[in-house]
């Protein structure tokens, strides 16, 4: 499977059709783009990756903190244990079925006949 960067921009085809009406506006956009100066799309994607990575690191740090406190995995959470012991009995129980599961996914295309199918 060819993998694309999640944040990859696709180059617009050179043949992008532009009506005369929008031409002037594009000139305006180009002015904005010039104002951006050194920032290219590549920079943009790289920097975006950077803050995504920083936030992800933060959560893995929190994970290790929990692991050090003997809380690595969900079935070891004492509150969850208490929730089942005192109240919901066990996963997939009747109570869990009512409170923690959903029974509704809608086919939304049927709600809206004018909607177009994507892709």
């Amino acid at each position: 499977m060819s993998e694309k960067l999640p944040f990859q921009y696709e180059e617009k085809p050179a043949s992008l059709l532009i009506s005369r009406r929008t031409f002037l506006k594009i000139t305006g956009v180009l002015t904005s783009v010039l104002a951006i100066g050194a920032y290219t799309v590549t920079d943009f994607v790289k920097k975006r990756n950077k803050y995504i990575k920083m936030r992800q690191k933060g959560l893995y740090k929190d994970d290790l903190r929990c692991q050090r406190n003997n809380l690595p995995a969900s079935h070891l959470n004492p509150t969850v244990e208490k929730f089942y012991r005192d109240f919901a009995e066990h996963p997939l129980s009747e109570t869990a079925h009512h409170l923690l599961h959903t029974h509704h996914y809608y086919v939304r295309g049927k709600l809206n006949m004018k909607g177009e199918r994507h892709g």
Partner: protein
Amino acid sequence: MGVQKIATFSPSEKTFTGGGTFLPGEVKGIIRINPNKCVGCDTCRHHCPAGAIKGSLGVTHHIEEDLCLSCGQCLVNCPFGAIEQMSFLDEVLSRLKDPDYTVVAIIAPAVRVALAEEFGAPPGTLTVHRMHAAFKKAGFRIYENNLAADQTIMEEGYEFIAKVKYWLLGDKTPELEKFAEHPLPHFTSCCPAWIRYAELYWPDILPHISGAKSPQQMAGATVKTWVALRLWNIDPRKIYTVGIMPCTAKIYEASRPEFKSAFYWLKEKGHLPEDTPPFPDVDAVLTTRDAAELFRCLNINPLNVSPEKETDITEVYTGGATIFGNSGGVTEAALRTAYCVLSGQEPSSWNIEAVRGHTTGVRTAKLAIPLKPLGGKKANFHICVVNGVKNHLEPILEDVVIGKSPFHFIEVMNCPGGCINGGGQPVNPMGTSWIDPLLPLPLKA
């Protein structure tokens, strides 16, 4: 540095009327483009997973509500700050002032590594005890969304194990019969933008999607039943639950009409007077940005409060839960628990690097798990993590529809990188909105 201010607007009457692809009561129009600020640079259209943005280069763009997932990816990527978010902050602030109500914050994992950005700290700065203290100072009680994520893993994990028993191990006992309608591969259900995407564009996939609610919805239903009745001893009608989310689609999720399960359960058990009108499990949702605004309104800086010393029982969570906010995290958390349950032993390491999405569009992995019921014989599980709906998901769904999917378990997160990059997060000029809004010449259509 500093984050970009995102304009917000309040819901109107039109918000709840339903119509088109929305059921009555569902919040629509959460994300909108301000035509006076849009310059038609077309960036947003390239980030929209649903093809919901219309307009060509140089022309003011607009969002087709009926196609929109409310994910907010367009918003966090608009370089001109032209996209705005509907906010329920005023409603939450007035509830906080009402002494009759217990206002409960349900705080998502991704909030704790982004909230600090709004107060000048670098991205990824982890606040847990300070964040908890700040919410308490603002008048909230806390039910950790991470605790609900642990509940999600228990429910969804056991559901997955039941599907494995039925479909792979040929266990056709009567209590597993209902899984006959829910074939593998199993899809995760915690991302509301992904759910809406499937409902709109891939209805054939719906039977594959887990029936476990998202952590936010499990939290709401649990707070208004177990927590209210058994732990806090308060009237569930006087609880106001607020999801604190990195996500704009969660605003929509909370408003879905079926999520009133605490009400129906309480009613059936005789805990409510006959004339009680139905109430939702989650009353309101604030994005990370909204929460920061709330703190600013109340003159609280979460970075300066003294961290809470004791962890309440409703604040206990595990490592598996906190990584829900990263792409691949739900999968890793599910595997940690599934491994223990299926094999009867603990893995040598809890860290399953192979499924971490990081910034890769699709991660796939094969994991061998020894099965206790088969005397320790190993079974191979094929796992797939989809990191961002845009660009990667369709070929995987096509394989499922034609019955050729090699996978048993597929995680889908709408936002690249996971919820830490959700549409409700602080907009950081490091990547998004990378130019001064005053620089470009705004164009009017």
